[in-house]
């Protein structure tokens, strides 16, 4: 079942080499030829992934390639091994596939940027990191590349480093991710202290030996990492800000691949979660809440990329919900479909921005359908897929999640999901209508929107096709291709028997909800029968809550950042300089004062010194005379 | 105990002292006559035949003069200083051997007051004590000229004493003793080098030392051309400006006695002392000393006075290194056995 191969390393190595070459020689030599290195490299990686996937899926075997031992300290032993099982190859396909398309798209999109080579260094670096994350065989290596993708995210969000907003967003993304990593790292440490190993297989074997408390702790700590990376409540705040990066980055990292690392990790570690019902429950609740909260926020945003970003958060919430209720395969299925349609949506909005000269505010768009039909149609496909309109990809996967939640013992959460689905359709089509329909709210004489060039258009089309058809990988529900493919991975998980009626009922419900959202959006932004302003007015505080992202940022700023800064400042000025250093300098001063006192003995008069010498002589001789026989013998 | 020997020594010393004083007196006459001849003058010739009574007349004159003590003077020191000078001057002669012992009245009478095994050092020590006469006299006069003269003299004497002492070290090395008797005995040996038969006088083996000794001795006795302490043109009369009468004469006497003693010493140390052709005896020594005394006068008549810095520079920069060189060379020669003369 397990086969050792030596070509698996090509998948990460090709993008790594591209990244290194572009980084080292890009600025002075390669410059605008950078894509000639990066794109083929990722292509190679993608092709190799296909080979790997074919091998794994058709032959039902795990591929395995040991590389080297990374750390060895006592019993702590961390080898770097590449392992490809079914879960991995699915992820590999998504990662390398979407990456390839985004790379191609970037050739056109980033063409005029002075940091072109840099972009084509960081992007393959990200591919490398993500691929390694997926291929890792133990938790520490997973963690390493977990952080590495975070780094790439930092580099790419802050790509336009001259913008304050971009720099701030990058920093925020990294630090917030680090909060999650803090938990993740602790989880790994606890895992190691409890089990003396970090290897997936060994860990999963040993899980039953642990007490339920420990397992819960481990699971929750690991999930903290996922919260950070996959932008779950309450750490999702970084993701919308991450839109300051170039749009291809948003598409690739902050929609399709990196943010799903958390989902992947939980899925990868499912034996641990399965051993802890509490942890699963927490995952599900956080997922559902995230889905709902992010959907409400998305509804109120005007920045097209932010809408899509919050949509991502919301969709990630769905996946987490799926994980929490034990619907592992639907979670991965949604991950897969989401990758396509979210990448599509981002690239589409990128095309819009491209055409609108970096305008992001939907209130200054409108009527773009006329000039950008290709973009329009692909965007609509993406939006519909996201909104879960039959028969596009999102419909199938989201439906499975809701079903899974229902049967997984959390009907309430399924209902929350449904509500969120309404908002999903609402904000998605709000974006479509505001952007492409109606009259242009800009001066068409100044701006001449047009469809993007081929390098950008081709990926859009391919992704649109993907967004349209990938859903059928999961058809029929419960027994689709994807289910068969991933079955071996999750064989230990319990399977709920799902009745056909439930499936159909849920499908109907979600379709209705989605259509309701679509109708509402149409009414509000096309027909104008509902005034969004009036609704916002009516809802008042609720609207403001959503529009301000539920005040998470404000809360963090007020309760964490500023108090910490103030406390540190106080510590520095009072404790460090005042008390500790004060004590040091104070003791020095005491010595100096004492010395000043002693100094008076130093009269400078030779006569006095001579007198002291003579006195000493007299005394010594006297002592010698008196006690000499006893003292000096 | 050997009271006898003590008495004999005392007697010899008494005789010697008187001879010295007499010699001293006629030394002044000798100097004046020779100097006058050299300067195409006549010199003292009125008092007695050839002016031979002149020293006596001078002596009477000086003794008859008033003994003036300046008001500013440090009285006690002023009075004692010339005595000190005068008293120390003839002591040096006590260690100079004037010949083999005489046998008179069944007694062995050495022609030598005291045979000390550190005789030469003793002479040097006397020289260094002698300085006090000058410096105290100059100081006690309460007069700036005197003080300056005294200071000059002190510095000069100390410096040249060093040269004097070091120049003799070569002799000591060869003789292996500080005792003048031993040194004399060494020189009485005969040196046979091939066809030549030479006396083992140290002037032959230590010519450099001899030259140094001669120069240093002149300076040590404050004679021309090193008579800076009493440079009349600059310092009135140096440290004895304020002295008059017999106290002045004490200084005067001391100077001439010193000259005689040094001449005797030079004769003993370098040219064999009583050793000479035909028959050894005190006459040889007298002859040699007379030559050195003549040399003193000759110098005075010939050479101008040194400038002070030249004087000191000569001592420290020329003579002292030469003396050290001489010591080193002599030491090496002695070490390699060539000097087993």
């Amino acid at each position, binding site marked *: 079942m397990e086969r050792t191969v030596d070509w698996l390393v090509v998948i990460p190595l090709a993008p790594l080499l591209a990244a290194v070459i572009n980084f080292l020689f890009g600025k002075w030599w390669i410059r605008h030829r950078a894509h000639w290195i990066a794109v083929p490299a990722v292509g190679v990686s993608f092709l190799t992934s296909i080979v790997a996937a074919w091998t794994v899926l058709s032959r039902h075997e795990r591929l395995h390639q040991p590389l080297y031992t990374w750390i060895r300290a006592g019993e702590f032993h961390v080898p770097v091994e590449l392992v490809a099982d079914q879960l991995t190859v699915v992820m590999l396909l998504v990662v390398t596939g979407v990456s390839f398309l985004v790379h191609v798209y970037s050739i056109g999109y980033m063409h005029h940027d002075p940091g072109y080579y840099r972009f084509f260094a960081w992007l393959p670096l990200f591919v490398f990191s993500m691929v390694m994350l997926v291929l890792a065989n133990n938790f520490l290596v997973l963690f390493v590349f977990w952080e590495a993708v975070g780094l790439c995210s930092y580099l790419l969000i802050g790509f336009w480093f001259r913008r304050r907003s971009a720099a701030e967003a990058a920093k925020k993304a990294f630090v917030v991710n680090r909060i999650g990593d803090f938990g993740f790292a602790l989880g790994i440490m606890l895992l190691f202290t409890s089990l003396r190993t970090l290897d997936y297989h060994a860990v999963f074997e040993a899980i039953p030996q642990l007490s339920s408390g420990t397992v819960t702790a481990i699971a929750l700590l690991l999930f903290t990492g996922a919260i950070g990376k996959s932008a779950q409540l309450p750490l999702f705040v970084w993701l919308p800000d991450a839109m300051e990066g170039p749009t291809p980055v948003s598409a690739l990292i902050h929609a399709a691949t990196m943010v799903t690392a958390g989902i992947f990790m939980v899925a990868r570690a499912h034996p641990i979660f399965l051993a802890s019902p509490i942890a699963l429950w927490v995952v599900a609740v956080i997922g559902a809440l995230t889905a709902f909260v992010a959907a409400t926020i998305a509804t109120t945003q005007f920045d097209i990329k932010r809408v899509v970003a919050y949509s991502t958060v919301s969709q990630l919430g769905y996946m987490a919900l799926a994980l929490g209720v034990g619907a592992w395969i639907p979670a991965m299925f949604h991950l897969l479909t989401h990758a396509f349609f979210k990448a599509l949506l981002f690239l589409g909005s990128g095309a819009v921005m491209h055409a609108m000269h970096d305008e992001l505010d939907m209130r200054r768009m409108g009527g773009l359908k006329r000039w950008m039909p290709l973009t329009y149609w692909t965007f609509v496909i993406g939006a519909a897929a996201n909104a879960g309109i039959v028969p596009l990809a999102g419909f199938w996967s989201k439906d499975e999640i809701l079903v899974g939640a229902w049967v997984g013992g959390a009907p309430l959460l399924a209902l929350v999901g449904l509500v969120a689905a309404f908002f999903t359709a609402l904000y998605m089509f709000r974006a479509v209508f505001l952007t492409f329909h109606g009259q242009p709210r800009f001066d068409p004489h100044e701006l001449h929107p047009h469809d993007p060039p081929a390098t950008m258009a081709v990926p859009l089309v391919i992704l649109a096709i993907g967004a349209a058809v990938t859903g059928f990988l999961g058809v029929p529900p419960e027994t689709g291709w994807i289910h068969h493919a991933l079955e071996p991975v999750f064989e230990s998980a319990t399977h709920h028997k799902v009745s056909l009626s439930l499936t159909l009922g849920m499908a109907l419900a979600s379709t209705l909800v989605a259509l309701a959202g679509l109708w509402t959006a149409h009414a509000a932004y096309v027909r104008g029968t509902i005034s969004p302003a009036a609704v916002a007015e009516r809802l008042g505080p609720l609207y403001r809550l959503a529009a301000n992202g539920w005040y998470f940022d404000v809360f963090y700023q007020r309760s964490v950042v500023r108090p910490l800064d103030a406390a540190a400042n106080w510590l520095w000025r009072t404790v460090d300089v005042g008390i500790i250093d004060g004590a040091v300098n104070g003791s020095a001063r005491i010595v100096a004062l004492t010395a000043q006192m002693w100094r008076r003995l130093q009269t*400078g*008069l*030779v*006569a006095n*010194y*001579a*007198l002291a010498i*003579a006195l000493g002589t007299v005394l010594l001789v006297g002592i010698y005379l008196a006690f000499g026989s006893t003292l000096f013998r | 105990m050997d009271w006898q020997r003590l008495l004999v020594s005392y007697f010899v010393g008494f005789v010697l002292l008187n001879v010295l004083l007499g010699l001293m007196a006629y030394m002044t006459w000798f100097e004046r006559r020779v100097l006058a001849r050299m300067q195409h003058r006549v010199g003292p010739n009125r008092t007695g035949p050839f002016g031979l009574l002149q020293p006596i007349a001078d002596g009477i004159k000086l003794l008859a003069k008033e003994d003036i003590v300046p008001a500013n003077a440090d009285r006690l020191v002023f009075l004692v200083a010339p005595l000190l000078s005068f008293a120390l001057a003839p002591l040096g002669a006590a260690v100079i051997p004037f010949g083999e012992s005489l046998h008179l009245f069944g007694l062995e009478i050495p022609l030598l007051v005291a045979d000390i095994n550190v005789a030469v050092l003793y002479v040097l020590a006397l020289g260094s004590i002698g300085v006090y006469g000058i410096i105290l006299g100059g100081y006690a006069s309460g007069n700036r000229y005197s003080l300056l003269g005294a200071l000059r003299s002190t510095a000069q004497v100390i410096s040249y004493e060093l040269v004097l002492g070091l120049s003799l070290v070569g002799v000591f090395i060869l003789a292996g003793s500080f005792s003048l008797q031993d040194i004399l005995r060494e020189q009485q040996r005969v040196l046979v080098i091939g066809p030549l038969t030479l006396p083992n006088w140290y002037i032959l083996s230590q010519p450099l030392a001899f030259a140094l000794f001669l120069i240093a001795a002149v300076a040590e006795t404050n004679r021309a051309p090193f008579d800076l302490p009493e440079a009349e043109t600059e310092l009135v009369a140096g440290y004895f400006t304020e002295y008059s009468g017999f106290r002045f004469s004490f200084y005067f006497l001391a100077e001439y006695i010193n000259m005689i003693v040094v001449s005797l010493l030079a004769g003993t140390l370098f040219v064999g002392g009583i050793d000479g052709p035909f028959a050894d005896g005190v006459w040889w020594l007298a002859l040699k000393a007379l030559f050195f005394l003549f040399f003193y006068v000759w110098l005075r008549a010939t050479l101008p006075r040194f400038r002070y810095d030249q004087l000191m520079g000569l001592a420290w920069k020329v003579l002292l290194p030469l003396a050290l060189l001489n010591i080193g060379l002599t030491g090496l020669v002695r070490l390699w056995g060539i000097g087993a003369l």
Partner: protein
Amino acid sequence: MTELSATHFLLLSAALFIIGMVGVLTRRNILVIFMCIELMLNAVNVSLIGFAWELHQLTGQVFALFVIAIAAAEAVVGLGIVMALTRRADTVDIDELRQLRE
């Protein structure tokens, strides 16, 4: 006390030494203090020579010789210091020479 012995030397030495010490303690003129120090060194020599004589040793004399040498060195340096001091402070009164204080 009828025969000369080291005790005599020692008593003389002690007397000279203590006279010197008292001089050092009581005088103000740095030059006189200097002389008193020489006196003390000399006193030490007396006792050394006394011992050497009594015990038929030369070590005492050797050490006396070293003491003399060192005294000479000390005199040279000391007087040099006095010269420098008077050149700077224009006094030989140790009560006015207080440079050691700073």
